[in-house]
């Protein structure tokens, strides 16, 4: 199998690890040495030409070839059977509407999250329960890591250079979670996006780090009110310029919501849309990011309200469907728990879902 990547000889494992740091092949964490043998195993599994290009990865816009993806998968510690998921995740991130170039270079702390759906969750042993955001299983950890290394090594987004994120967040180094489809009482995320439940799919979503929300022991409205109140704050981009927001609902909260009459994600989204609003008087005290070119007014005033009415309320997303809802995480004990992940605003990072194709298919 023809491989085009440059080769570097090192004496042993220690030298390999040090070389990867020296050459800036990794972002501060150690990596698995991408040996010829290990990369060949990846390429043998995927059955696609090493020089096939999935797309240019911004901001460098270097082509992500199957070979480069395989090398970065090895470095991340992926098994060969994870590679189709990494490819699909990258395809989702490279969709124009995701605007990876903006996400990789903005001063905001948005990072691409990968969400996994379908039978592959069980087949490959993803972890979707307690502490879901800290990985806890090899596929969560290494697939998220591989996509980070591709954005780093192929995309070339280096902090302080082309990556201008002022704060960043820890999710950047590994941000991959599956949905808990088993305890999801509603449609799984990929089904909402038009896929069949038995299909494997991966979604990309650009967002801040997860904000943990304690949603109480059980009442459905209390759960949603806690979420809504946590969303409607000054300082997140959604409040000021709209866009999309991810809501990760714990399985216990999901069960209580259904018990309380919220039998569809649509109902949950509509309730949050009505409740997650911020008064004009409060917005005026905030940063006011985003101004209308024609009127010089803050963009939140594009929402049809009376700007002189202090009590008028602006929703944190501009349409109910701009909430992305999934089920994951642990059951909890005295209370149910959820998380919200504010997005980057309307500029990009919207949910994009792609199918995971078997080896040899494209």
């Amino acid at each position, binding site marked *: 199998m023809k491989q085009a*990547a440059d080769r570097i000889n090192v004496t042993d494992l220690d030298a390999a690890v040090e070389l990867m740091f020296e050459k800036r092949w990794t972002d501060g964490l150690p990596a698995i040495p991408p040996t010829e043998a290990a990369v060949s195993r990846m390429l043998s599994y995927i059955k696609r030409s090493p020089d096939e290009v999935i797309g240019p990865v911004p901001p460098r816009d270097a082509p992500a070839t199957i070979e480069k993806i395989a*090398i970065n998968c090895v470095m991340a510690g992926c098994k060969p059977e994870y590679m189709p998921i990494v490819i699909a995740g990258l395809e989702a991130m490279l969709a124009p509407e995701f605007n990876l170039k903006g996400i990789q270079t903005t001063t905001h702390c948005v990072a691409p999250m990968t969400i996994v759906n379908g039978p592959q969750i069980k087949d490959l042993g993803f972890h979707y329960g307690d502490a879901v955001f800290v990985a806890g299983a090899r596929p969560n950890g290494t697939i998220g890591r591989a996509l980070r290394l591709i954005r780093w090594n192929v995309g070339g987004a280096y902090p302080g250079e082309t990556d201008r994120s002022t704060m960043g967040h820890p999710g950047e180094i590994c941000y991959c979670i599956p949905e808990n489809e088993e305890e999801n009482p509603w449609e799984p995320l990929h089904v909402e996006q038009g896929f069949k439940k038995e299909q494997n799919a991966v979604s990309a979503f650009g967002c801040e780090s997860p904000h943990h929300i304690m949603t109480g022991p059980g009442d459905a409205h209390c759960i949603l009110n806690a979420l809504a109140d946590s969303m409607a704050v000054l300082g997140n981009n959604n409040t000021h310029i709209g866009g999309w927001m991810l809501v990760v609902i714990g399985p216990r909260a999901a069960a209580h919501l259904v018990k309380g009459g919220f039998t569809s994600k649509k109902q949950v989204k509509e309730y949050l849309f009505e409740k997650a609003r911020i008064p004009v008087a409060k917005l005026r005290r905030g940063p006011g990011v985003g101004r209308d070119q024609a009127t010089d007014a803050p963009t939140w005033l594009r929402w049809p309200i009376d700007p002189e009415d202090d009590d008028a309320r602006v929703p944190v997303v501009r349409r109910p469907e701009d909430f992305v809802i999934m089920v994951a995480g642990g059951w909890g004990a005295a209370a149910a728990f959820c998380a919200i992940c504010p997005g980057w605003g309307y500029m990009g990072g919207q949910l994009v879902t792609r199918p995971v194709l078997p080896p040899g298919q494209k």
Partner: protein
Amino acid sequence: MSMGTTSRGMVLLDPVGRIPEEAAKKLSVRLPDLTNKKVGFIFDGHYMAEHFWPAMEEDLVKRLRLKGKVSRVKPNVGAPAPQAMVDEVAAQVDIAVTGMAA
């Protein structure tokens, strides 16, 4: 031996993406003189530069004795200009100025 080590050591494959040489060296055409040329401006629309950018446009037209200008504002501050906008401006001008301001 483990980790791909041989008696000669270990061979690693470079994970870094490279721009093909021919693409990296491609530069846009440079005009020898701007006098009486028509210029296109594509502004990202960032609010931090919404007063600066129009003033800069006017200043450049005057100072460089340009024939005229075509101004457009990107619909999305954080994304590249739509190709249709780029093509529409390119069809009308001799040179174009694009920029980010944050």
